[in-house]
C-alpha cells in the first residue's frame, strides 16, 4: 500500500492507525465523542480479516479486548470519560496479567456524564491512577490528526513490546477536528509484535523472566496452556501470597516502564533565546499555546515550550531542567488543575508554577494564555 493523503477526523486517524499497526479486534460501546472510531472499524475490520463487536457495555468491551488479545489478536477499545470509569477494573486486570491492549479515551467534560459534546482534559490523573493498586501506566497525548495516527501505531507497538495496556488520551477537539494528513506507506513505520515462546508447550511458564523482564506470551488456542488470574501469581501463573514472590513481581511490572523510558518518553521542546517563561501543555491546549507563543514573540516576549506527546510516565527530569533556566512555568489545561501538580512536583520549588484553567466545555484560547504570559513577564 502506497502513501495516501486524506482529510480525516482525529477519531478516524486513530482507527486507521490501529489498522496500520495490525489491530484485528475492536470491542466497544459507542459514546460521544469517540463513536466515529467504532463506526470506522465496524466498516473496515471485517474487510481486513478482523472482528468488530458492539458489547452490552464498556465493562464487557474491555473484557472482550483482553480476551481477544489473549488469543494473539492486537486489540483496541474506544470510549470517553463515563465509559473509561467503567473500564478501569478490567484495565487493572490487563496490567497484572500483562495483556497488551490499547484504550482510547476521547476526553469530554465530567464528572459523570458531564458535557457529552464539550472538550476537556480532566482525565489526566485518572489515566495514571484510575485503577487501584501500584501499576504501570503509559498515556500518549497526540496534538493533531496526523499525530493521532502515529501515536496510535506507537501505542500498539508499546503495548506489544512491553506487554501492558496503553492509554491514548485525546479530547473532543482532537477527536472531531478534521485536517489533511498522510497515511504512510506500508512498512514506513516499524510494527512490533509481542514476544512469543520458543520453548515447547510442556516447558512453557507464562511469567518466566529468565530471558528478560518481558516474558514471552503464548496465544490461547495455539497448544500452550496457562492460567490467567488477577491475583498475584508466580511464574507458573497460579496464585501466590508468598511475600518473597509477590514484591519482585510488583516491582517488575513497574520496571517494564521505568527501564524502557527511551522508547516511551516523547516530547517536543522549543527553546528560545533568553526566555524567562516556559509553558508545558499537551493536546488541543498545546495548539492554543503555540498560537499564544507566536503572538508573544511579536510583542518581544520569548517563551519556551515543552509539548508533551507522552503524558505518563511524566518527564519530570525535563521539567526540572527547565526550571533551572526560567523563572515561571505556565501550565494551560482544560481542567481545574491536574498536570500542574506533576509540574510543581518536578520543579522542586526552583521556579514559580501557575495555571491557565478552563472547565466550561470551551477550549482555552490563545488570548487567555497570552494574557498570562504578559502577567508573569
Amino acid at each position, binding site marked *: 500500500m502506497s502513501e495516501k*493523503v486524506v*482529510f480525516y477526523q482525529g477519531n478516524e486517524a486513530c482507527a486507521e492507525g490501529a489498522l496500520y499497526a495490525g489491530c484485528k479486534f475492536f470491542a466497544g460501546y459507542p459514546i*460521544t465523542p469517540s463513536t466515529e472510531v467504532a463506526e470506522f472499524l465496524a466498516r473496515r475490520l471485517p474487510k481486513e480479516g478482523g472482528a468488530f463487536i458492539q458489547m452490552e457495555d464498556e465493562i464487557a468491551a474491555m473484557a472482550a479486548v483482553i480476551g481477544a488479545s489473549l488469543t494473539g489478536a492486537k486489540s483496541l477499545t474506544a470510549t470517553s470519560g463515563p465509559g473509561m470509569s467503567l473500564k478501569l477494573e478490567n484495565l487493572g486486570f490487563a496490567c497484572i496479567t500483562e495483556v497488551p491492549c490499547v484504550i482510547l479515551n476521547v476526553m469530554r467534560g465530567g464528572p459523570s456524564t458531564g458535557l*457529552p*459534546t464539550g472538550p476537556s482534559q480532566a482525565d489526566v490523573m485518572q489515566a495514571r491512577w484510575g485503577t487501584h493498586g501500584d501499576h504501570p501506566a503509559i498515556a500518549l497525548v497526540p496534538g493533531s490528526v496526523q499525530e493521532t495516527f502515529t501515536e496510535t501505531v506507537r501505542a500498539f507497538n508499546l503495548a506489544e513490546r512491553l506487554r501492558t495496556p496503553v492509554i491514548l488520551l485525546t479530547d473532543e*477537539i482532537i477527536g*472531531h*477536528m*478534521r*485536517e*489533511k494528513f498522510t497515511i504512510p506507506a506500508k512498512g514506513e513505520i516499524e510494527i512490533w509484535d509481542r514476544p512469543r515462546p520458543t520453548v515447547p508447550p510442556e516447558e512453557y511458564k507464562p511469567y518466566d523472566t529468565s530471558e528478560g523482564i518481558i516474558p514471552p506470551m503464548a496465544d490461547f488456542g495455539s497448544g500452550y496452556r496457562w492460567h490467567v488470574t488477577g491475583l498475584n501469581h508466580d511464574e507458573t501463573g497460579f496464585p501466590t501470597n508468598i511475600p518473597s514472590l509477590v514484591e519482585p513481581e510488583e516491582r517488575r511490572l513497574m520496571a517494564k516502564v521505568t527501564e524502557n523510558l527511551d522508547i516511551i518518553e516523547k516530547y517536543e521542546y522549543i527553546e528560545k533565546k533568553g526566555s524567562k517563561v516556559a509553558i508545558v501543555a499537551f493536546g*488541543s491546549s498545546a*495548539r*492554543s499555546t*503555540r*498560537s499564544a507563543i*507566536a503572538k508573544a514573540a511579536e510583542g518581544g516576549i520569548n517563551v519556551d515550550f515543552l509539548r508533551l506527546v507522552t503524558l505518563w510516565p511524566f518527564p519530570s527530569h525535563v521539567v526540572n531542567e527547565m526550571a533551572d533556566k526560567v523563572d515561571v512555568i505556565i501550565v494551560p489545561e482544560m481542567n481545574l488543575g491536574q498536570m500542574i501538580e506533576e509540574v510543581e512536583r518536578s520543579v522542586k520549588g526552583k521556579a514559580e508554577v501557575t495555571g491557565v484553567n478552563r472547565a466550561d466545555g470551551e*477550549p482555552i*484560547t*490563545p*488570548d487567555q494564555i497570552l494574557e498570562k504570559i504578559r502577567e508573569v513577564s
Partner: protein
Amino acid sequence: MSERYEVRLSGAGGQGLVLAGVILAEAAALYDGKNAVQTQSYGPEARGGASKSEVIISEFSIDYPKATEIDLLLCLTQEACDKYTSDLKKKGIIIADSRMVKDLPKGDYVIYNLPIMDTAKEKVGKTFVANIVALGAIAHLVEEVSFDSVLKAVLSRVPKGTENLNKRELVG
C-alpha cells in the same frame, strides 16, 4: 490573503452545517492545496438545538483550530445570527437566510440576505439541501476557495445517485 481566513456556519442541528464545513474545508485542503481545519460544536440533540461548524483556511500551518475573528458568517437561524455576529471582523461577510433571519444585525458588515431555504424547497422540494445551496453562495463570494474545488468536494461527499441534485443546488 491574510494569515487565516475564518468561516463559521451556524444554525440548528440537522441543517447539515457540519457536512457543509467538511466539504468547504476539503475543497481548500485537498483540491486547492491549502491548509484547512474543520471543527464543530453542537448539543446532545440529533435535531434542533444550536449547531455550528467552523473552517479555518490558510497558506500556513494552523495551530488554534477554532474561529475567533470571523471573515464569513453563515446564519440559517435568527438565534445563530444574534449570537455570533459579535465575533465577526469589521467589513466581514454575513450570509443570512431571508426566511429564517428577519432581524438583520446593524454594524460595519457586508450582508447578503439570500433565499437559501426557499431555493432548496422550491427548486428541489427538499429543505435539507439548504446546506449545499449555502455552499454555492459561499463559493461565489469567497476568494480563498475556488468554485471548481467546492464542486469537486461536493460530488465526492454526497450520497451516490444525488450528484446531479447537489450539483444543481450548488450552481443555483
